[in-house]
């Protein structure tokens, strides 16, 4: 459960559901996400928990949760 810049939000990522399309990387305005091969990375110091990646994800592999 990688933390975000916001003290009260976490970004949940479900590797088993993810289809590695990398749509989340393209929509992230903060460059907080990256994909390399099949490896998904969140740079916690950049993520503002804006949830755009949650909305674009075609399969629901991402979730924002209150800490």
């Amino acid at each position, binding site marked *: 459960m990688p933390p975000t810049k916001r003290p009260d939000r976490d970004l949940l990522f479900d590797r088993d559901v993810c289809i590695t*399309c990398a749509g989340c990387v393209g929509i992230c305005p903060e460059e907080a996400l990256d994909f*390399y091969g099949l490896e998904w990375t969140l740079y916690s110091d950049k993520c503002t928990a804006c949830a755009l990646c949650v909305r674009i994800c*075609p399969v629901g592999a991402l979730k924002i949760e209150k800490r």
Partner: protein
Amino acid sequence: MKNDKYDVLVIGAGPSGSVAARHVALRGYSVLLIEKRPIIGSPVRCGEATGEREKLATYAAVNEDYIETDITEAILHATGGIKIRANLPTTTLMLDRLKFDPWLAQQAAEAGAEVVTSARAKDVRPVENGYRTVPIEYEGNEHLIKARMVIGADGVESLVGRWTGLRNHHLPHHVCSGIEIRLDMLDENPNALTFWQGHDAINDGYIWSFPKAKSGVTNFGAGFLTPKINTPNIYDVAMEWKEKIYPDANVIDMVGGAIPVSGVLEETVSDNFLLVGDAAHQTDPLTGGGISAGMRGGWLAAQAIDEAFKAGDLSKSFLSRYDKAVWERIGKGHAFQMRLRQWILAMDREKQIEFYTLFKVWAQKGQSIPRAILSHPLIAAKYAWEFYKLH
């Protein structure tokens, strides 16, 4: 990587990157084409339909092996149960992108480009002494590659452009979330692309069924503009429709992705750098199709780069001729498609039924647009007024 200096470095070996690499290499420049994924073309994130068979040969030699189906017809299931069948004016193709993308990369290689997979660019540094330096992660090591010109062809998830200061990330109202469920059967119309659009299906997007005849596979997919949070995602919507339309078909696998539908970006060049393909938002804002526009983008990029090398000027101001060419050859058409999308999506259900009823008459008579307007001048005038009032 055989050298540490190249004339041109292309980042991303999709159709746009490979066509750009091929056409730059054909003009005699040294080219390195890198792809971060281990296998070019995989995973496929595409409906695999592309227009105009006749134009394919402009970009690279044609290989019938990657062509799955010659499409001659389109079927649209629109609002209010209206079904529109129309012959297409040019031959559209269904591709096998697992064969198509590697073929284009191989074409680039045959033209003299060096192609390296599992190689990922980590940054694009500012221009120094006429070169940009790009650190590339490859086989666990970091290689510093110098290139006089860098082409960013890194697709919808493009970061390369942002590293050089270009603003090419996606805005939620200008990007689609898409899913494609591949089914082990062929539709009863194996030479037609079938769509479902409007308030009775998906309004801010559409559902598609594209037949891959050689493989006996149907690409059944759906896409819509970025949904609100806590609403069904496109996978759930697509599965619901799969059960309605093809209840007996088995799911082979599933792919998905984001599709830029903003229209081409105004600025896609900086010093010794330019963007092509999805990274430059060269996708049709109405259909989401980006293969042919991306290849054209790569081809225009190669021309601009050749002119820039010959003039000895790789500056942003010189390369802006690429943005102009893209606007003329891709952008104008896409801007029209964008207005069409905004107009159709803003209609309420009744209005959509009226529109599609008339569209059906035009499409089935095979009329040209001027003749169609003359046949229903009052409605056409009303529509024209609404259409041009949009902005």
